[in-house]
């Protein structure tokens, strides 16, 4: 569950970076949708680890796709091969799989591609047909990554500025027919994307699993910091780190999610 891992490679890809981390124990048991919890800077003002989805597993190597959004991710993006990394994982509950032969939709917003990439690899292996919809701000966000996804799935891209694929959001991309014939859907992205997607899937009667982002402290379910509103009776909270980060979208109380 915990590891002194080693950075093997850091590849800039546009405004993001792809880290390859040697962490055999974690790699061996990680499932799509699970995350790792990383110390980003020993001698830093940061008291918390940073949660990152597993982007890929190849042999004993974990892939992590990260966007620099603050000091912690900047630190991470500046690692060099050979640097040690303190990682906990795999943590949380990932996506439930699909049946072989099914056609499923994967809907990603920005770095939300990370867990869905891993999921697509696994689903493909299991003979599930994947339609991948990915929206981002601009073509430059993730370097060549979008082009390489073609091998993995039936991939459709959208950018807000129209520099790659369709112009608009990933929901525009889905349009009226994107989910036609889809048995189930998987998503990861900002809640501004997940919310309407939830409605769309509900209307279409397609079961949807979403991975949510909530700020985390412990990452293991002990501090109750990463509360996600659920429609339980009475309405309460689940913990993103332990009960999620993947939830069936019908269990979440979207009214109380911003």
């Amino acid at each position, binding site marked *: 569950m*915990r590891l002194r891992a080693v950075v093997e490679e850091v590849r800039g890809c546009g405004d993001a970076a792809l880290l390859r981390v040697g962490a055999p124990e974690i790699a061996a048991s990680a499932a799509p949708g699970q995350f790792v919890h990383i110390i980003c800077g020993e001698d830093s003002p940061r*008291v918390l680890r940073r949660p990152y989805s597993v982007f890929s597993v190849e042999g004993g190597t974990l892939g992590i796709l990260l966007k620099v959004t603050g000091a912690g991710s900047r630190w991470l993006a500046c690692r060099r091969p050979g640097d040690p990394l303190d990682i906990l994982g795999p943590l949380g509950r990932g996506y439930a799989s699909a049946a072989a032969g099914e056609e499923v939709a994967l809907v990603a917003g920005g770095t939300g591609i990370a867990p869905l990439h891993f999921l697509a690899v696994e689903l493909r292996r299991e003979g599930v047909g994947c339609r991948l919809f990915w929206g981002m701000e601009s073509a430059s966000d993730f370097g060549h990554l979008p082009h390489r996804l073609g091998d993995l799935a039936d991939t459709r891209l959208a950018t807000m500025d129209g520099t790659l694929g369709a112009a608009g959001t990933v929901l525009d991309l889905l349009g009226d027919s994107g989910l036609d014939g889809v048995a189930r859907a998987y998503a990861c992205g900002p809640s501004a994307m997940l919310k309407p997607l939830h409605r769309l899937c509900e209307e279409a009667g397609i079961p949807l699993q979403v991975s949510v982002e*909530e700020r985390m402290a412990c990452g293991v379910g002990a501090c109750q910091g990463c509360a996600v509103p659920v429609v339980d009776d009475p309405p309460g909270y689940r913990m993103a780190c332990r009960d999620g980060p993947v939830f069936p979208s019908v269990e979440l109380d979207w009214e109380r999610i911003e």
Partner: protein
Amino acid sequence: MTLATDLAGIRLPTPVLAASGTFGRGTEYAGLTDVEGLGGIISKAVTLRPCAGNPPPRLWETPCGLLNSVGLQNRGVEAFLREDLPELLSWGVPVIVNLAGFSREDYLETARVLRRAEGLSGIELNISCPNVKRGGLQFGAEPRVAAGLVAAVREVIDLPLLVKLSPNVPALGEMAAAVAEAGADGLSLVNTFPAMAVDIRTWRPRLGAVTGGLSGPALRPLAVRAVWEAYKAVDLPILACGGVSSWEDAVEMLLVGARAVAVGTALFREPRTPLMIAQGLKEYLLSKGLANVGQLVGKVLA
């Protein structure tokens, strides 16, 4: 040389505990640290009835610190006794229940229920939670009010009674004295400090509950001073917490008057922190030729 120590009548295998609200039932950390090696576990706040806690976001990181506004999320004392306590007790280390309430009757009724519990080592009376609108802190601001509550709880329950104080009072010594007078067996210092942060992009508070409590190394110097003030004021054992992250921090707390320390925020970064601290303390005692941590308590040359 031994790390075992006595805190207000509670026999601790080591003087390093897991702080309230940060360790769950232990189970959560089971794969990451040896829970059996702890000096004790203090439960998350337990209230009479189930409590949903505050709306998210509940966390925000600040320079060397953490804001939380979890609030008193828990399933109520009955569920606690039924579901959590057995798991907490399964680790074989002392378990202390953090007792909170929204009114005097709440506290007392919960205490009465806890009286039935077997295996409990003590109570940490939480009169200092900055994360609830009613109750909590309101009992911790005025010595007279605090003393009244402590005395009433004291009558209800026989277990060792630690009172967890707010550091956010100008005359901490008076507060400590009032609580001691009212029958507390020990003090627990400090709870988080009332704090706040705002997202300048959205103009909204970083926390759903608007304000929260600051923990972590940022506040350690305030906690050290609070422990020292309390130590000078009263002759009660003190459980210190607030930013303790290393054995050096623990020694500092012992020197200003703590008998034991609790670790909260540091667990999130390194779940093994309490064990590493215990190991460090052991080596420190050995290197100084000391027989137990008691020989460090309050020994600051001030």
